[in-house]
């Protein structure tokens, strides 16, 4: 029995080490790409639901399809990130009878509470990256991400639907997809990043 206990303990320790290794691997984003989805059915740990509350409805579920309505624009959602990325591609899938074009943007870091700077998708880009299929609309956009875009370890995106408020109209957001990318990691860059991280922590 003593041996079984020893083996059990060793297995627990190995399990714990693997678990930490997995977490470090996930946080480093070694492959350089991170794909995140919020389909509103399962609460996403990383992509928030839409807010502020007075402009959007709660999460609705119909025949296993979940969505969130927008009544007044603009609305926002946050994507928590564990490290810096160079690019963020976002895709919003929504239901809208009028097939309106939504405009996506990336909020800049707020220096003061009234600081509302953002990178908004251009009108041409909005038209090019709009797809209508199976009664669903898709709008995608790509943004360059820098340290100036990160607030509290999160990226904050804006969804604007021009004319929504005046037209007393509403759209249903069905799915948000975010693809974050950065250069791939190797041992050299991992050590350089670790060094920078420690220096940053010491200076904080």
């Amino acid at each position, binding site marked *: *029995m003593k041996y079984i*206990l020893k083996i059990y303990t060793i297995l627990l320790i190995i399990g*714990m080490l693997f678990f*930490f290794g997995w977490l470090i691997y996930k946080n480093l984003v070694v492959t350089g790409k991170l794909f995140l989805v919020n389909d509103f059915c399962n609460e996403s*740990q990383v992509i928030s639901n839409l807010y502020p509350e007075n402009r959007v409805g709660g999460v609705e579920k119909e025949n296993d399809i979940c969505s969130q309505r927008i009544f007044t624009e603009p609305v926002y959602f946050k994507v928590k*990130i564990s490290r810096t990325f160079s690019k963020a591609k976002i895709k919003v899938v929504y239901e809208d009878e009028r097939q309106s074009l939504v405009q996506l943007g990336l909020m800049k870091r707020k220096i003061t509470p009234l600081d509302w700077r953002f990178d908004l998708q251009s009108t041409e880009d909005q038209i090019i990256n709009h797809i209508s299929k199976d009664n669903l609309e898709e709008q995608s956009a790509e943004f360059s991400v820098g340290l100036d875009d990160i607030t509290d370890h999160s990226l904050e995106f804006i969804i604007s639907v021009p004319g929504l408020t005046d037209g007393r109209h509403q759209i249903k957001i069905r799915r948000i997809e975010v693809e974050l990318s950065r250069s791939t990691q190797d041992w050299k860059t991992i050590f350089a990043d670790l060094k920078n991280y420690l220096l940053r*922590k010491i200076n904080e």
Partner: protein
Amino acid sequence: MNILFKKIIGIAYYFLRNTFIITGICFLLLIIAEDLQPGFFSFWFDIKGLTIGVIVSGVLALFTSQFITDKI
């Protein structure tokens, strides 16, 4: 039967104790890592399961400690 039952519980104590110690260390390390790097674990999984594991194994180890046998 009663003696056998007590013996099994006594042996279970050692397993529960080790589970408690290792999951407890794991829990503390995760909390420290999360404090140093926000989102270290909270972005990827819910810590509720591990917390319940630590508490349950700790409580069970405490209750079974009265059945400890000298030899395992």
